[in-house]
């Protein structure tokens, strides 16, 4: 499976992991070789298999009562937050953001 430099750039962008251009050849090579090992799975007859997943008997997800108390924190958020002001987590303003908050996904 040949992973191209563009593939690596694209994946790195999706994953928000900055990759040094000089590392591209090594990474592309490593990922390609690893994925080559996975190729063997394409030959497996999976018709007898269900969707898979952890093997425990499932009565279904447990449901929680709609009530507190909330899970306590032993420290205030400011204790471990990189930048807090006025109770808010502060981050650099999104570079492509203009004058409305609508671009957030929901």
């Amino acid at each position: 499976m040949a992973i191209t430099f563009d593939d690596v750039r694209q994946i790195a962008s999706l994953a928000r992991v900055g990759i040094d251009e000089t590392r591209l050849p090594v990474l592309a090579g490593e990922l390609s070789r690893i994925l080559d090992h996975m190729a063997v799975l394409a030959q497996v007859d999976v018709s007898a298999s269900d969707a898979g997943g952890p093997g425990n008997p499932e009565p279904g997800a447990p449901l929680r009562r709609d009530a507190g108390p909330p899970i306590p924190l032993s420290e205030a958020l400011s204790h471990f937050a990189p930048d807090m002001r006025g109770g808010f987590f502060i981050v650099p303003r999104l570079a492509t953001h203009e004058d409305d908050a609508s671009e957030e996904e929901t």
Partner: protein
Amino acid sequence: MTGHTEAGSYEMVVGLEVHVQLTTATKAFCPCSAAYGAPPNENTCPVCLALPGALPVINAHAVELAARAALALGCTVHGTSIFARKHYFYPDLPKGYQISQYDRPLATGGVLEIGESRIRITRVHLEEDAGKSIHDRYPSASAIDLNRSGVPLLEIVSEPDLRSPSQAGRYLRALREVMLYTGVSDVNMEEGSLRVDANVSARRFGDANLGTKTEVKNLNSFSNVERALASEFERQCAVLSRGQRVEQQTMLWDAARDMVRPARSKEASHDYRYFPEPDLPPLVLTDDWIDRVRGSMPELPAARRARYARDYAVSDGDIDVLVATPVLAEYFEAVAIASGDPKAAANWVTGEVLAERKTAVHAITRASPVSSGDGAAAPGSSFPVPVDRLAELIALIRAGTVSHTAAKAIYAELVRVGGAETAKRVAERLGLQQVGDDAALRAWIDAVWLEHAAEARRFESGEQKLKGVLVGLVMKKSGGRADPRRVNQLLDERAVRG
């Protein structure tokens, strides 16, 4: 809706994706409070902060509300549904993914009837909300508040069955009503508990295929939805009539400029990399459980409309006003029953009561005036005049103890004292009891005869059309207290006497 161009007629095709916040006490996957309005980041915990090692646990009530909404929309609620992770990076999405549902949603295949149209509901699913980003509070920074992160949302997706902005508006109002009636959500667009994204496309009439659709976001009121749809459709028709193709993109509604504009694309593509949420086993709902939810369904808007027409003979116009706001309808019913006079109750509730609520300012947390059905604020949870006081007032009018005019003044005073006094007591205190004593009435009539001798003479000689004016003058002379019926009769006597 159609756009006529030189090239031909185009038909508007619209599907709506509506997100409603559920009225749970706690969040979808953690026991933090879901209440609105707390100081920033006060309602947070390891789970909704996405601290390392935290895990989600599903809120039972959120599931119940979701099922209730889905059933009220005529959907099939599936016995097994699966949560999935939807990945994207944004500072108000702490895990870097949203827990949502993808190819095995909670419910599918419903329908919402609006008038003669049946709008199909594709799916209803449960997911969690993101936090809020505020971009104008600090220079070159965004301020993130995660109170909202993890609050449960219901996503309701319609088929592209809508054909005009006004139909879309009716769909939204009807959907909103259902959510209010089932107690699922406050559906308040201003507060963000109801959000709408629209998918719009245009096609030639008779064309079975769908045109390329654009997504329109940033819609914050029902009227803006309608305007945005019209604007975007017009834009697409113009593109198509130039022989060009509509580009698939996200558009934002710019309320200030009254137009849609393309969103600045922040990602070349949205690859959400959905996969089943490994931290949550499948959601299993038994048939018994689903039946119980169905059985405990409150009365839905359509049923209430029919019942009001049948049992209370409420007019269509009044029905629309009452049914649009469940708390108003409930108040009306209580007053109708207490007073035994549904017609009067309907008049009062859709009249004086509603008018007063609209201008009232609430001290209660979710302070907002009564809705105009525009997707704006919902009514306050209490009415200042208790049911029995208004019923009493209606009875006083019927008994002739106070006139209708006086009753309005009495009502205003009842509002002011918050029902601390009986209506009768207020009437007495304000001296507004209707006066039916002939001697007093004659005295007022005599006074008017003196002040308006010419009109009086003409009326006595047979000009019936002056009767209304003279009655009005007597009412005014009496400070509104005269019994207008008796005044009419006494005037009749004078006319006969001549």
